[in-house]
């Protein structure tokens, strides 16, 4: 119910077209890379999906995170622009329900985004590399991992967007966080737990143990960020 309501609220905001076009743009990255310099990659001795992700994922994930940040800002700007949130707060519903509804919407469009990208990586693998039996499974595993690590980013972006009534402040903070994340060394486990740094990680570059640790850490971060938002809402109400 809350999911449907939140989806209705973003009508005419450009939210869905932004994710669709952003997904197509990110999906175009591996395709264009292969179209212009396939000779650099086809001779490599690794699984095609891993070669493609190793070469393109940094750019693709950067686009994904920027889209998530912009999406979160759009979702909350509809509430703050004409003070609709005040009316919502006077109805028998909780602000936290609204937050989790928006989270569900952002997760859904992020899945759509990753699906478009997965199709592109899968297509590039078939077109430029020899088709292997486990290609389908490899793609699924990688993009499942990306989705898992994207959850803290989605929630943290929404927390930032919910705190400030001015969309430009939320967007600014989000963009700064993205650039901070790009400066974090990818081999440092603790630093890469920063919510905006997690989506840059790939399965191939880590051992099974580290991947398990990241998966657990991502899940724990997701829960903690959700609790943080609930606390913020309670504290904010006390100061209003």
């Amino acid at each position, binding site marked *: *119910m809350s999911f449907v*309501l939140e989806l*209705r*609220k*973003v*009508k*005419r*905001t450009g939210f869905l077209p932004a994710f669709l076009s952003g997904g197509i743009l990110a999906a175009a990255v591996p395709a264009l890379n292969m179209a212009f310099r396939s000779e650099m990659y086809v001779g490599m001795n690794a699984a095609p999906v891993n070669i493609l992700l190793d070469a393109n994922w940094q750019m693709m994930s950067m686009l994904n995170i920027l889209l998530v940040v912009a999406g979160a800002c759009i979702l909350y700007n*509809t509430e703050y*622009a*004409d*003070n*609709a*949130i*005040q*009316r*919502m*707060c*006077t*109805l*028998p*519903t909780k602000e936290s329900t609204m937050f989790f509804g928006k989270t569900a919407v952002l997760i859904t469009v992020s899945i759509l985004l990753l699906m478009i990208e997965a199709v592109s990586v899968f297509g590039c693998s078939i077109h430029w590399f020899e088709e292997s039996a486990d290609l389908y499974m490899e793609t699924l595993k990688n993009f499942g991992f990306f989705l898992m690590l994207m959850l803290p980013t989605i929630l943290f972006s929404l927390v930032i967007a919910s705190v400030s009534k001015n969309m430009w402040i939320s967007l600014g903070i989000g963009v700064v966080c993205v650039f901070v994340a790009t400066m974090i060394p990818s081999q440092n486990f603790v630093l890469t737990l920063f919510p905006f740094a997690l989506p840059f990680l790939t399965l191939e570059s880590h051992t099974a143990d580290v991947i398990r640790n990241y998966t657990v850490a991502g899940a724990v971060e997701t829960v903690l960020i959700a609790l943080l938002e609930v606390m913020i809402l309670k504290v904010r*109400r*006390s100061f*209003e």
Partner: protein
Amino acid sequence: MNIIETKNLTKTYGGFAAVSGLNLHVPKGTVYGFLGPNGAGKSTTMKMFLGLTKPSGGSFVIDGKHFPGDRAQILKEIGSFIEAPAFYGNLTGEENLDIVRKILGLPKASVSEALEIVGLTQHRKRLARKYSLGMKQRLGLASALIGKPPILILDEPTNGLDPVGIHEIRTLIRSLPQQFVCTVLVSSHLLSEIELMADNIGILNHGRLLFEGTLDTLKRNAAAQGYPTDNLEDTFLALIDADNQQRGGAR
């Protein structure tokens, strides 16, 4: 029987008391005019009733329900309009009301009914951000009236309306207790406006309740204290002025 009752309701911001020890009694099925100059604490009181602001002290009961324990039940019974219209600018008037309808679990027909009451049926498909100020005000009222709630809290609902609009809304508010069997708490800083709508009034100044009762009682009390009673506007101003003088000339 009182549908809204407050007991020493207080709201402070740092050292400033926006509402101080307020004891309000709103009788069921009446229009209660909440009157006071700007900054008197009218909106703060209404915001506390709606859970938008946490009281610093005291308590209140709405239709026998206590806040904050029965917050959801209280909000189910209240239609509200606070300070300025609040809406989704990217949605049409109809879509805005449909969101409220879904949250309240009302039938689909309640949207068109609310639009009809405030005279927005013709403009229901227009984006709310493209509405004129008066139309936004009407949309806010429609959002408060949807589902005919038993209690209506309206904070300066005629702000921004032209004289014809003011007259229409005033007539509508006046008719609500009979039409929808509801209680209306309406605020204004204009006694002339409240005079035409309210059965009972409460006068607030600097967060304190100066008077509560009927207009006739106000006139009688004012005459007894030597305040002008020919014009209620003058009575109101004299009352506020006397209170300000007592507080050391603070305005």
